[in-house]
């Protein structure tokens, strides 16, 4: 019947565009991952243009697997994503429950809270690593400096001075360092995405059945039991949504990682690809294929989890 076929045809442009968008670059990446292809090479100028005669088989994959950064990057990718998910969901639920009931200025607090979500990721990273977290010039440095100044003052006090002189000077933390740069990234992304979680949970809380809660009160359930047995299960689906959307965005984190430490001690897969791509396109492409595989594993897992709720 013609008036059924036409509507279905309407989705083909979108499908075709996405298919092309996925397959062509992916095809090229796949091709590059099997050849020797570098941007600069004095000894092998023939490797600087892509050609089948530079076939390397699985050589690029072996090279990537043997590089010490690869496993670290995978671990780090998962570490960062999982930490952010954990923090945003916990904080999101707590804050949503806090601001769900009406209080003076609720609307303004909502607006204040959502703001970080609209900030450009690059600005977010620049803002945090420089003006807030910098150990000398940022607010952290200034705050630690201030505390140390106060301590210095106390040491000169007549009686208690001896006690305070036992205290060490506080050291500001450098968040560009190997051990801490991942923390900085987690911090800034959590700041940006907690508001998203809060608002989604809040929307959901507002649809919570109030009669059910009243019935629970009559049944003798306290505030905690109500939260545990009514509110949390009610938030199950929105939590799944928050986890899925965030996973999609955070698996490809890049700007934050680059700006915080240029990948020092804190590479994720996209960043590692970027590093390889400075010269060794073959290796970068092989890493890219690994990243696609990882993303697909996560995708299957996540879509299974949320897929059902979306079609209802």
């Amino acid at each position, binding site marked *: *019947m*013609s*008036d*059924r076929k036409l509507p279905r045809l309407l989705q083909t442009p979108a499908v075709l565009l996405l298919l092309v968008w996925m397959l062509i670059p992916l095809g090229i990446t796949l091709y590059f991952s099997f050849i020797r292809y570098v941007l600069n090479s004095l000894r092998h100028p023939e490797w600087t243009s892509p050609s089948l005669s530079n076939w390397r088989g699985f050589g690029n994959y072996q090279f990537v697997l043997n590089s010490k950064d690869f496993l670290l990057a995978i671990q780090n990718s998962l570490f960062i994503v999982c930490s952010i998910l954990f923090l945003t969901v916990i904080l999101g639920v707590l804050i949503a429950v806090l601001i769900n009931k009406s209080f003076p200025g609720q609307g303004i607090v909502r607006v204040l809270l959502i703001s970080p979500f609209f900030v450009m990721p690059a600005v977010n990273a620049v803002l945090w690593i420089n003006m807030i977290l910098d150990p000398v010039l940022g607010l952290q440095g200034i705050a630690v400096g201030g505390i140390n100044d106060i301590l210095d003052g106390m040491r000169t006090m007549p009686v208690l001075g001896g006690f305070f002189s036992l205290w060490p000077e506080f050291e500001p933390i450098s968040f560009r360092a190997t051990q801490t740069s991942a923390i900085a990234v987690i911090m800034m992304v959590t700041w940006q995405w907690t508001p998203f979680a809060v608002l989604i949970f809040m929307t959901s809380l507002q649809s919570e059945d109030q009669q059910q809660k009243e019935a629970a009160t009559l049944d003798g359930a306290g505030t905690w039991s109500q939260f545990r047995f009514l509110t949390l299960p009610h938030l199950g689906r929105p939590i799944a949504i928050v986890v899925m959307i965030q996973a999609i965005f955070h698996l490809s984190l890049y700007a934050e990682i680059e700006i915080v430490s240029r990948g020092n001690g804190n590479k994720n897969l996209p960043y590692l690809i970027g590093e390889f791509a400075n010269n060794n396109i073959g290796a970068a492409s092989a890493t890219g294929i690994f990243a696609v595989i990882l993303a697909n594993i996560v995708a299957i897992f996540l879509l299974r989890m949320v897929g059902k709720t979306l079609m209802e």
Partner: protein
Amino acid sequence: MGRIVLDKVTKSFGETQVIPPLDLTIENGEFTVFVGPSGCGKSTLLRMIAGLEDLTSGNILIDGEDATEVPPSKRGLAMVFQSYALYPHMTVRKNIGFPLRMEKMSQAEIDERVEAAAKSLNLVDYLDRKPGQLSGGQRQRVAIGRAIVRDPSAFLFDEPLSNLDAALRVGMRLEISEMHERMQTTMIYVTHDQVEAMTMADRIVVLQAGVIEQVGTPLELYHKPQNVFVAGFIGSPKMNIFSGPEAEKHGAATIGIRPEHTDVSMSEGTWKGTVGVAEHLGSDTFIHVHNTGLADMITVRISGDISVKHGDTIYLTPQAEQIHKFDAQGLRIE
């Protein structure tokens, strides 16, 4: 104009066949009601006639022409939906005039027809409101108005009254019946409410699991139900149906007796039982009788009031000529 013929129509969703081959003819000007329990396929059948649902096989003929492949709007039918399906962003005037605008009719003629429809449905004062500002009954009228203006060869109603409260429902039922008397257009009406079916229909089609159990006038169905299902479905309170030795006495596998066809006595009768609940409606009394040894409960209906109370012993006597007899397959024995 408006003779609709279903010729070996079937419908399957995936592997499951919801409507096995079905033949039915709806005569021009007839008010036909499809009735049956929920999930019996009556709405699917209506939507297939409307063209909103594809046929898996078979043909639909409207006024002798094969309409199986004709898109819904070209079939000359108008439909009133259960949810009214008004366009919430349009005023009542725009809603009613919408199908005419789609036919590219001139604005003057649209206005004229909308005014006429609004007048006949008492909607003149509401023409510039949006559906959200109307009551349920008014929305229902707008939906009917949108169907009337097209001057269709047949109206299709999909449980149009089920979202209204009881009082409004009775009123709208009368209005639709009157509309049919006035217009004499074919109407097909789907409902699960057998009272609606009995009061409105020229002809009732009783459906169960996609199969037509019986087609007939309301009184035919009442007096001569072709099988146990129709016997139990038509009539309120429901017919008492039971099998066993008492049925065998009448030479049947199953017998049925309507509540209103049973006489009651406090001293003597064919069957003895104990009064359970007695419902006093004023005009009638429904007595639910237990411990008869025939069925869990026998319901009887007595005109006027009778003073019985819970636990009283009571005697029932069926009116012999009103006993319905059915064979082992559940089919009527004459």
